[in-house]
């Protein structure tokens, strides 16, 4: 396959998550759990020739003011099990998910991803996330023992061990030769001996090398160690979406770190998470976007958001009334647990919000709607295609991980209307040229990125 003339857009489909981005009050909102919803979503993404489907993970239900948070979608199925089942109803779509490195052991993860990759014909992807919170740890044998500064040490070590396990079978180990009677020859399965800070793993791996060798590796993490880890090891970065300039700076920084690890910039795709709202006209799209934001921030959700900043019980306040006259309690910042916290200096933020609300005469709910993020892309299908393409062509990203606000139909309109626009621009595939997720992400790029290294990577802490 010859290299496309124009830089190609890569798209992933993020199954709507358990936060207020996902609108459940809409009549079109379906089950977040029933397998039929996943099938619908996967079929839409595959019809749209997306690179992969993505499932997020959270291993403890979120709590707000000491009780289970009940205002957003709650509940998710097991990631591996859904992805394996989806492999049965799709043929090309990549199947990726977050699997936590703190609450899993490398041998089991290696077996599970190798199994998914085998059973999907080479379509597995792993988003490595490392937690250090004891809150989630209460659901696990190991507890939440990890010091925050050890997060990337653990992620790096678990990746090192899983790669050694995946590499421990030679690619042609399974001979299955009836004539000679050899199924797997002696010496074809290398014994792994790893002794490290986090893990002691000794023995042979039980699963033959899978079609992709390794699952496609996704990472997020914006800190300096996070960026370094991504530049060294990731196939794709799940980043935050911002301005064109911020995207270009992140893109250049990440890809600039790669030569140090002997990697070509094309070996890594940068895929910010992005939301979108479509309309028949620009004004229509803006109106729909505003409506979605009102759905995302209901009256009770507005109070809950305010409580996260104020660190107090504000349930007595009217969401359609003015901001509380009391000041935030800066000591009580952990009012919501089990989710990423956005703000650190809550006193300054509260002052800023108070000024904004007073100057524009905003109620609590109006303020929260005003200050919550606008959708990344708002417009007609042609406008949204143009915006996406311009980010990619300007090297602010290699594509996007799209997060629809509705389950399971939130991607239907995008696939029907925006994908053809992107194809018309020559920026998006018109068929799947390969069969594995690595093919989708890297085919047409440098030959080096087509196949991951098949030799074992050096182990620094071998016994």
């Amino acid at each position: 396959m010859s290299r496309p003339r124009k830089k190609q857009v890569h798209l992933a489909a993020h199954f709507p998550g358990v936060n207020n981005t996902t609108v459940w009050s809409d009549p079109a909102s379906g089950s977040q759990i029933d397998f039929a919803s996943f099938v619908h979503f996967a079929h839409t993404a595959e019809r749209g020739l997306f690179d992969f489907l993505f499932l997020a993970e959270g291993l403890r239900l979120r709590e707000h003011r000491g009780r289970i948070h009940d205002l957003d979608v709650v509940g998710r199925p097991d990631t591996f099990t859904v992805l394996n089942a989806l492999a049965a109803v799709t043929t090309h779509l990549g199947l990726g998910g977050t699997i936590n490195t703190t609450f899993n052991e490398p041998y089991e993860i290696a077996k599970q991803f190798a199994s998914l990759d085998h059973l999907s014909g080479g379509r597995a992807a792993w988003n490595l996330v490392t937690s250090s919170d004891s809150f989630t740890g209460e659901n696990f044998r190991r507890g939440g023992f990890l010091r925050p500064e050890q997060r990337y040490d653990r992620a790096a070590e678990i990746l090192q061990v899983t790669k050694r396990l995946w590499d421990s079978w030679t690619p042609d180990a399974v001979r299955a030769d009836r004539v000679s009677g050899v199924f797997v020859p002696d010496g074809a399965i290398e014994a792994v001996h790893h002794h490290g800070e986090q893990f002691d793993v000794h023995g042979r791996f039980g699963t033959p090398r899978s079609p992709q060798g390794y699952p496609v590796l996704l990472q997020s993490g914006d800190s300096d160690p996070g960026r370094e880890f991504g530049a060294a090891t990731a196939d794709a970065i799940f980043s935050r979406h911002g301005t064109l300039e911020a995207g270009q700076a992140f893109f250049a920084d990440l890809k600039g770190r790669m030569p140090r690890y002997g990697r070509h910039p094309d070996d890594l795709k940068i895929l910010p998470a992005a939301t979108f709202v479509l309309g028949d006209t620009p004004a229509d799209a803006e109106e729909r976007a505003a409506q979605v934001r009102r759905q995302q921030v209901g009256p009770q959700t507005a109070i809950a958001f305010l409580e996260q900043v104020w660190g107090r019980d504000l349930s007595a306040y009217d969401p359609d009334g003015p901001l509380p006259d009391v000041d935030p309690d800066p000591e009580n910042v952990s009012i919501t647990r089990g989710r990423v916290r956005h703000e650190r200096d809550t006193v300054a933020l509260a002052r800023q919000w108070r000024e904004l609300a007073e100057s524009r005469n905003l109620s609590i709910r109006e303020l929260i709607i005003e200050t919550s993020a606008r959708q990344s892309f708002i417009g007609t299908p042609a406008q949204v295609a143009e915006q996406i393409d311009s980010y990619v062509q300007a090297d602010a990203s290699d594509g996007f991980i799209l997060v629809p606000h509705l389950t399971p139909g939130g991607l239907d309109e995008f696939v029907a209307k925006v994908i053809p626009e992107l194809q018309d621009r020559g920026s998006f595939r018109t068929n799947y040229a390969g069969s594995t997720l690595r093919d989708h992400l890297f085919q047409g790029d440098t030959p080096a990125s087509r196949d991951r290294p098949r030799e074992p990577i050096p182990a620094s802490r071998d016994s």
Partner: protein
Amino acid sequence: MNPYLGVELDGAGRHPAAWRLPDARPSELFGAGYWTDLARTADAAGLDFLVFADSFAPPVDGPGQTGIVRGRLDAVAIAARVAPVTSTIGLVPTATVTHTEPFHLSKAIATLDFVSLGRAGWQPSVSSTQAEADLFGRKDAAPAAVLWRELAEAVEVAVRLWDSWEDGAVIRDVATGRYVDREKLHYIDFTGEFFSVKGPSITPRSPQAHPPLVLRCDGTADEPAALPVIGRWAQVVRVAAPDLATAAEVRARVRGAVAEAGREPDSVAVLLDVETLLADSADEAQRVLGQLDGWVDGERFALPTYTQRPPTAQVVGTAAGLADLIEDAVRGRAVDGVTLIPLALPSGLRAITDGLLPLLGERGLWSDGDDGDGGVGGVGRPLRIGRQSKAAAEHPVAEHPVAEHPATLRDRFGLPRPANYFATNYAATNCAATNCAATNYAATNYSAANHSTEARA
């Protein structure tokens, strides 16, 4: 009474040389097509369930190893992969508990239940060797008594997590802005000898609520450790025994353990493991076995070493011979059914579906429900549902409306959808707080609850 009929699938069959037979598919053992073909064959034939074997036991190098199948895929993954392409058969993966997280196991099996629309089961097992322990590096191998105590805790955690969401917890109440009624979500607050788990699960209550638990009772040194766990938790017990008389003794001990745990012995099905190698004549079957053994003997190889299974009943002969054994087993009340373990695949499965089942049908021991009132799931074959509601005495709500739903694996075993532990045990406390009516509704109407998890407000 018709016997329960399940089949265990493992690689190219239980015999380690089976991959060399002409109809074997040895180069496809790690691909989806092999497993979906097997599962569809068993599904179309109306078998009750498939067990997918699994273990962390690592492959070893050395004399006699090159000629045997090495390598396996995760059994829960295989079960999930075949779920969407099958419609009625139960899917029972083996999943070990010694080196894994109960929280993950609980939601994985619950999710298998969602993707199969209520056909999941679970065969929990222990990892007893140091070789397996070394792959995880967290602890050393432990004796059976310890491993089974830990298994009991893992099962208890998994089952409590399955109940940590009551049915109808998702309310989508726009007026109050609440997606979920948190009074119907429960911390399990489990603290045991081996671990503590807070809960609730991240996964709502599944179609069957409690996918059937399949436990092994092998008459080995493990049995004293296993029996109390079986007595408390098992819905299905797999027995390895060399003959029916021994099997009947094990069954009696299992039923004793169930009664001792305060449960109704008739609510637990005891199935004998039978290894099978079938051919048109007994001589031909013996010839094939001789060929298989010859391939292994040539490498001075011992079968039990590989399978790590205690010896069990074996039929190397004709389908009629196997039918005789099954007939004797159920008419003599030695066991409630069998788990057939083909020595070679896929031939061994075909011999069961095409050879054995028609014979059992002629003897009145099998009907695939083909009595003509409509098909289910596109296979054009009506359901053959739970032969008798054996558990009716134990569960007063056995008038589960099975006819209106695709049959679950629990239906096949005559088990109603279970009451929710938390809704039942904590109803009084919840009443004191709020929401008394809703709680009692959940406690009493579980069997009639629909299979959709998301009641819309």
